[in-house]
């Protein structure tokens, strides 16, 4: 029987003692890079797609406005609404919102504020144009129409 005896006695197990270290490394990576979202978005957000996308280096200068159909249709209706921070606002309230956002920035940066409009694809131009007019009045004229990278083409 010794003919068929295994000749090799190399270990067959993968050493798992370093697995916690690897996992911890991954864990720390995600802990450091993760950023908790501070606002709940209460409107539908299907981003349009575009190619000529640009990013801004100074993220602190960006303030977000979310526009879309409310997620709770029975409570807020089907008409697209504007969400700023955690509340729905009317186009008339945009100036006030911009001023409060500007107040959060350093004085030198106030005129460099950029508004990122996160608009649902189904929202209509009429509402967005109203917001734009108010933004012009509030002197926040740098705008970023948020979009995702177009995949095909």
């Amino acid at each position: 029987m010794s003919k068929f005896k295994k000749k090799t006695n190399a270990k067959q197990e993968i050493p798992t003692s370093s697995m916690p270290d690897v996992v911890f490394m991954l864990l720390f990576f995600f802990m450091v890079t993760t950023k908790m979202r501070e606002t709940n978005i209460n409107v539908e957000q299907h981003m349009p797609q575009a190619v000529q996308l640009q990013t801004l280096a100074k993220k602190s200068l960006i303030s977000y406005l979310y526009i879309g159909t409310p997620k709770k249709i029975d409570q807020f209706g089907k008409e697209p609404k504007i969400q700023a921070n955690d509340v729905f606002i009317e186009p008339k309230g945009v100036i006030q919102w911009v001023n409060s956002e500007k107040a959060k920035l350093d004085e030198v940066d106030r005129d460099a504020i950029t508004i990122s409009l996160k608009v649902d694809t189904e929202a209509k131009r009429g509402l967005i144009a109203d917001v734009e007019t108010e933004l012009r009045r509030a002197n926040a004229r740098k705008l970023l129409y948020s979009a995702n990278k177009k995949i095909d083409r």
Partner: protein
Amino acid sequence: MARSTPEIPNASMADIAFLLLTFFLMTTTVASDKGLLVQLPPPPEALPPDTDVEIPERNLFKVQVNSFDKLLVEGEPWTASTRELTDKCKAFILNNGQDKASSDNPQKAIVSFKTDRGTSHKVFVDVLDALTAAYYEIYAQRAEVSVDRWREISSEPNADEVSKQLYDKGRGVLPNGAVEIPKNISIAEPTKIGG
């Protein structure tokens, strides 16, 4: 002499770490602050009342979209792709007076984009993307960089000396400070016609 070993069992440490890892994996959102950059004009009240400048028809590239998301380019219904719209727009900007029906020079050329209040945001972004592409492709070609690189440069033109030079080269800054090919995309106030 039997001694109790003062060790904490660490076999389950990996499980705990995995649990935490899964939590952070699921809550992480990759920040996507990408979008089409637009500079709005001054507020309507700030403009002097008598600024109605007559712009010759040939210097205007008119793109209109109605509430059914149908395009009208230079008065003709548009059925071709957005790529062709970009090419047509580029030809208009770089006409330099060759075609008598098209623009005199890039400085005078204005791309006018008008929508209806009922136009969807999707089509608005599509068309704005195509028109922006026309300018960025021209700039990129002049600066001899790729369009992707050009977008990076124009996002932060003052980031460093090299990008500032390329930015000025692409747009063609003249000695008096004017720009040879300004990005004249005018987004007009939407109409209220509906259909």
